[in-house]
């Protein structure tokens, strides 16, 4: 299975833009009020940094996935253990994403259809693409869905132009302060940091160096688009309303009205959302199945897909309501553990040790 550098770009971009655009605006605006857009600038820079670090780490061993080279860097047993937080992270987040996405779809499109059906339908598609094409199929799908997603985001931003009032983002900085701005940026950074998945994906590309560049570009473009949309949300709704809504971007799309005819085009946001979630879930399913298969030395990774799929259905339905799934998971597990450990700590650690090992090896030779 080979993927090209453009596919890495589109995959990273598509997987990030959905959730960042829809879910992270509200917490950020709650912290930083009308300076939330500055938080997103910082978050974008931090995200690029994380991606860069993870990419450099993978370049040390370009033809091997994370599971494999962590064993090389840290030795067989330590390397295997250090991967376990990632498995917890991947499997639990698949469940949460399924839950959250189906909640949004239920809120906007349906009222009585049970969540289970929505989840199962999406799961079937995700399994389909993984069985048939693996990462190559996902990459090609993202090359088609990615441009469509971007186009729709840009259209939504564009059509809202006559609802903007520039002065809603004033006064800049004085109401919040550096601390709240940075704190508001934490949630977006943790979502941008999902690009550490490239540690698993870079081994499938033909030119890993260019793959890293394009992955960084992916995060960068998403960061720019999200910052602009945050600006626009603040300018349309003001800080007070947008911090209380669950999904301000969605409401902004709903608010568009052009020539009294083009109204209620929230369906565009739903399409963005479903496409992006689909790519994200497919990549996570692939990475989990492939990773577990490599970890346990199972030859055919496709067999692991079924196990991961069933686990994800269970994990998505155990939350009693949306609040626990989104807010508690975010605050209690994602921000305190995943962000510092999985996204920043372990890659930097491995990178450091890997570089030292390579230098030692060169000295030996």
């Amino acid at each position, binding site marked *: 299975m080979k993927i090209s550098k453009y596919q890495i770009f589109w995959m990273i971009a598509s997987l990030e833009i959905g959730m960042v655009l829809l879910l992270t605006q509200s917490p950020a605006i709650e912290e930083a009020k009308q300076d939330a857009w500055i938080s997103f600038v910082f978050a974008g820079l931090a995200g690029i940094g994380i991606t860069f670090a993870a990419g450099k780490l993978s370049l040390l061993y370009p033809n091997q996935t994370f599971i494999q080279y962590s064993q090389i860097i840290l030795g067989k047993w330590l390397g295997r253990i250090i991967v376990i937080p990632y498995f917890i992270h991947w499997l639990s987040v698949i469940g949460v994403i399924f839950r959250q996405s189906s909640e949004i779809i239920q809120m906007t499109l349906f009222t009585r259809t049970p969540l289970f059906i929505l989840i199962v339908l999406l799961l079937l598609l995700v399994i389909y693409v993984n069985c048939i094409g693996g990462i190559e199929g996902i990459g090609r799908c993202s090359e088609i869905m990615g441009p469509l997603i971007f186009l729709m985001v840009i259209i939504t931003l564009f059509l809202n132009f006559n*609802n903007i009032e520039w002065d809603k983002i004033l006064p800049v900085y004085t109401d919040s302060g550096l601390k709240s701005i940075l704190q508001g940026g934490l949630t977006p950074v943790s979502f941008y940091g999902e690009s550490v998945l490239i540690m698993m994906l870079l081994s499938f590309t033909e030119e890993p160096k260019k793959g890293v560049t394009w992955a960084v570009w992916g995060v960068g473009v998403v960061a720019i688009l999200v910052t602009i949309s945050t600006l626009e949300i603040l300018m349309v*709704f003001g800080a007070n309303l947008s911090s209380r809504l669950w999904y301000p971007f969605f409401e902004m799309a709903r*608010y568009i009205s052009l020539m009294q005819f083009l109204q*209620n085009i929230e369906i565009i946001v739903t399409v963005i959302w479903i496409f992006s979630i689909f790519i994200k879930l497919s990549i996570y399913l692939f990475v989990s199945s492939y990773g577990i298969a490599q970890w346990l030395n199972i030859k055919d990774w496709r067999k692991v897909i079924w196990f991961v799929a069933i686990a994800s259905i269970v994990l998505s339905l155990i939350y009693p309501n949306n609040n626990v799934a989104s807010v508690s998971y975010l605050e209690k597990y994602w921000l305190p553990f995943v962000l510092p450990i999985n996204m920043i700590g372990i890659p930097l650690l491995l990178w450091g040790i890997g570089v030292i090992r390579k230098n030692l090896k060169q000295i030996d030779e």
Partner: protein
Amino acid sequence: MIKRLKICLIILVCMFLTTGCWDEREINNQAIILGWGFDQNEDGDYIGSAQIVVPGEVGERSSGQGKGYIVETATGKSLLDVTQNLQRKLSRKVFSSHQKVIVIGERLARNGISNILDIYSREPELPIRTNFFVLKNGDALDLLEVPYKMEDMPSTAAMKMFQSTAGPESTTFKDFLEDASSEGISPTLPILEIISSKKEGNQEKEKDTETFRLGGRAIFNQDLELVGFLSYREAVDRLWIINKLNTHKLTTNLLREEGNVGILGMNFKSKIQPIIQNDQVEFHITLSVTGVVRENNTELDLKQPKNLQIIERSFNKNLKNHMISTITKVQKEYKTDILGFGQSVHKKYPRKWKIWKKYWSKKFSDADITVKVDMHIERTGVTGSPLHLKESEIQK
């Protein structure tokens, strides 16, 4: 083995197909509510009235017998309760995603409307693009029953009336929420009044000549209770100050000449500048408008630039005086900042604002206001002077 699993999965999926769909609703089983009215009776219960489309009577196929809509009411303790009780009267399911107009009776407005607002932000089916109105001197139910011949649905008529001054895409609900939730401004809502069209000001309302019109603005305080009204002209001033006035036709008497001139105003802009001196705040308001002369009832020849300047000067003075009187009325009589002065202080002097916002209504009432109006006349229509005057009468 894999093949058998696949077949099992497909059968499983097909089972879902046989259980029917949960959310399917036929359009013709929905009661589409276009306009909604809120009242409160003496017991404190809410009365909701709904203007519901009857699709079979809409359009050319209707022989003119039906009005195309019906009005139904129900009582309850909260909006959700009212909707549930309303459903008992309706043969179709309540569908409120297309509500364009919501009218609040005056009594309910005076008692405070914060209890009915939550559902409008929370319920995903209710759009944020609705228009709220306050009905002066009456119950909202009466308004919904007034027929309006020019539009299919009277509710759309109310909405379009509002949009003719404020702009085609403006709505009142989002602005209301924003103003209510922020600390620098108090919210307002536009007013509708029921009048009988032939005899203005007549107390007896004859049913078939009844109609409604756009009034001024209803002022709410921070507890969302109705405290006062602005007249229509004052409401226009307010829209101008907060930069939301789209077009308006202004008429004024000239200062030194006889007669009046009417212009169509476009590009209404305003700039509020707060200046703080010795812990007191002054506001300098600069207003500008571009005008096109539409009616000239004087003898001036408008081809001469100096005549245009005369007209501009008259407008500037008269508009300024009216604006000052409006602002003073809001300051002294109602003491609520509905003009956004607090917000401008917040934007320019954020640190001061942190201190002042606790007692802003006092500070607001004591502030000094200076207004400057700048009108610029661009065109004068097709002629310079009126065509019906004799040559000797024209003043150059």
